C-alpha cells in the first residue's frame, strides 16, 4: 500500500488527513496524483507540491516502492 497524507487546506477539501492507495509494480508519483485528482478535483486544484517519504519531489515520474508515504500539499504559509 501507499500512504497518502494531506495537510491544512488540502486535508480540509479532501475531508481527511490520510488515504491508502494500492501499490502496483511500476507505479509513479504522477499516477497516484492523477488517480486522486480525478476523485478529489477541488482538493487538487490547490496542490502545488509533492513529497515522497518526507522529502520534496520535483520529478513526478518518481517510481514509488510499496509502503511509501507520499503527500500532496498546498503552498506553504508558515512563519
Amino acid at each position, binding site marked *: 500500500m501507499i500512504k497518502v497524507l494531506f*495537510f491544512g487546506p488540502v486535508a480540509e477539501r479532501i475531508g481527511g488527513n490520510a488515504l491508502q492507495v494500492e501499490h502496483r509494480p511500476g507505479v509513479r508519483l504522477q499516477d497516484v496524483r492523477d488517480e486522486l485528482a480525478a476523485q478529489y478535483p477541488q482538493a487538487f486544484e490547490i496542490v502545488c507540491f509533492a513529497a515522497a517519504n518526507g522529502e520534496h519531489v520535483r520529478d513526478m515520474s518518481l517510481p514509488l516502492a510499496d509502503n511509501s508515504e507520499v503527500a500532496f500539499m498546498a503552498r*506553504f504559509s508558515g*512563519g
Partner: protein
Amino acid sequence: MKDAVRIQMEDFSQDEEIRALQASSKRMGGIATFLGCARDFSEGREVSEISFDAYGSMALSELKNLRSDAIEKYGLLDARIVHRIGTVKGGENIVFIAAGAEHRVAALEACRWIIDELKQRVPIWKKESTPQGEAWVTPHP
C-alpha cells in the same frame, strides 16, 4: 540545552534562545534575530487566533536542513530556529530565528534568508479565525 531547531506548541523565550546561541561561540560578533508574530488584523478582517497545521516530521527535517544550509552559505557560527504550531492568539509569537556570525552582515543576511526560505520550503500552513469564519492563509510573496 534545548535543540537548536524545534517545532513546538508552547511559547518560546527569545532571551533563552539568544543565550544558547551566544554560548556556542565567543567568536560571535553579531547576532541577528527575526520574530514572527500573529497579527490581529489581516486582509481587512479582525483575526482572533491563528491555528497551524504541519507535516511535522518533514517540517522539522526541512528546518534542520535550512539551518545547516544557512550556516554553510553565510559562514555562520551558529543558528537557531523555533516555530510554534497549534493555536496562537493575536499578538503572540509564532517563529523565532537567530543567526550568529563573526560580523553583522552575515548574521543579518542569513536571518533574512532563513525566514524567506522557511516560507518556501517548510510544510506548515496557517488558518486565521475571523468573525466571518475560518480561512487558510494564501501566502504573501
